[in-house]
């Protein structure tokens, strides 16, 4: 095997539509892979004019092309070469976002029941949730929904037996090994432990979602009066999100 000339691809390559390819890495999600996926996307968009956009999952990329894929010369071997040369590309600087969250009972319908399920106090649940730093892996499911990794082990839990048919915009949830923020009103099966006044998805802006894959998120506990004040500013359109 040592002398075999042909190098195996570092990813599995599927053409699932004449103009769409899927690349899959056989691994658990991890910070190193996330960094590679972000850098690879940037490099592909720079080097292959045939690629019109890329979407990302935990261990996969989907490449949309503006021509049929079989017209591209020596694809996917040239993708593989590009992947191997990634160290020559600079990675975009990641931003840190602090999201204010009100964890008071009236804003957190499932805080008490989740604390009971986890056998901890509501105060330590909030302390654990605000002490961690979360990484945006990618955005999907709903417009502006961030897939976050980094939930402390003590907060991992079963999803709710019955999903709520209506979850408010800005609700913070925990489900399984994940935590997240509902950017727009939707149904949802996660335990709701707080609410943020921050505008998370703004369709009238050129960049409707503030965060990008690779960014960090921290949650900051705020009082109900602070929440109401910030919510007033959001409604007036004066509340702006800035990274740290």
């Amino acid at each position, binding site marked *: 095997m040592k002398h075999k000339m042909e190098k195996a691809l570092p990813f599995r390559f599927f053409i*699932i539509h004449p103009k769409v390819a*899927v690349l899959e890495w056989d691994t658990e999600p991890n910070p190193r892979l996330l960094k590679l996926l972000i850098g690879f996307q940037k490099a592909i968009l720079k080097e292959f004019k045939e690629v*019109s956009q890329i979407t990302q999952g935990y261990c996969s990329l*989907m490449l949309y092309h503006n021509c049929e894929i*079989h017209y591209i010369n020596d694809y996917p071997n040239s993708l593989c070469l590009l992947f191997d040369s990634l160290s020559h590309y600079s990675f975009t600087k990641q931003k840190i976002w602090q999201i204010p969250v009100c964890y008071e009972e009236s804003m957190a319908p499932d805080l008490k029941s989740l604390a009971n399920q986890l056998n901890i106090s509501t105060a330590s649940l909030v302390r654990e949730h605000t002490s961690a730093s979360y990484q945006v892996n990618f*955005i*999907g*499911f709903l417009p502006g929904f961030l897939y976050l990794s980094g939930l402390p082990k003590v907060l991992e839990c079963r999803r709710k037996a019955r999903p709520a048919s209506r979850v408010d915009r800005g609700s913070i949830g925990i489900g399984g090994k994940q935590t997240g923020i509902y950017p727009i009103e939707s149904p949802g099966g996660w335990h709701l432990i707080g609410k943020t006044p921050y505008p998370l998805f703004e369709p009238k802006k050129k960049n409707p*979602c503030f965060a990008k894959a690779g960014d960090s998120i921290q949650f900051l506990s705020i009082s109900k009066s602070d929440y109401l004040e910030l919510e007033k500013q959001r409604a007036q359109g004066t509340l702006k999100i800035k990274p740290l």
Partner: protein
Amino acid sequence: MIEVLLTGIHSSIQDLGRFGMQNTGIPIGGAMDQAAMQMANSLLNNHKHSAVLEMSFKGPKLLFHQSTAIALAGADMNAKLNEKPINNFTAIKIKENDLLQFGNAHQGKRTYLAVAGGFKNPEILNSRSQYLGITPEATISKTKLIPIDKVDLNLKKGARLTLTESNETDTIPVYKGPEFYLLPKKAQDQLTKQVFTISNKNSRMAYVLVEKLLHELPSIWTAPLLPGTIQCTPDGTLAILMRDAQTTGGYPRVLQVSDEGINRLAQKSTKDQFQFELTSV
């Protein structure tokens, strides 16, 4: 302007959707049957992505507040202009105060109404397609006025199209999805040999099928999806994602419907049956 007197069952303004921002979770959206939508536009010499009104199952009742020209394509909805029947696939002159009304869909489920120059509701994120959360409403609403373009189209010789192919074809061309290869031969054969039925859970987002697939696929790490992706849940339920599909999901992706196949499915609904036909990319 067009005034909406009755909305019909599900009527929404659609163009070819929002492309290029799927990495922020924004669905592509756009007309379900894009072949019919572009046909309606071409009859009026519109741009192929001009916004049209997509009418599903039963159409609306509309009052024109201005003169224009219209064209219909897709399912036959017994359209009547001032109480007189009009045909699909032809350009028709409209005067101010004309009344256009539709009945139930026959030979398909969705009909497209194009107006000269297109519908002009506000563009949000490069598209006029309605989608709740991005646009204020998911459909047109009663008594509201919808802005349309003001172009003077000379219709001395009205364009007309004759369809050579029926849209009632019951085969849907598909490609293999990323997890197709993980299925045992028996399940792969089931996908291509079985007749499938659309359940009553069908919308612009997805069509859930009645028949289940026997499989033991593991769940996958949440991965990208696109319109036409067929997901398979742990109990074997198959869901065909349609134009308003979410951009990521965690169920195995067994098949991918071709663009043409999505257009065909758009004209089908509850209880309609079809077979998948595997084609190569």
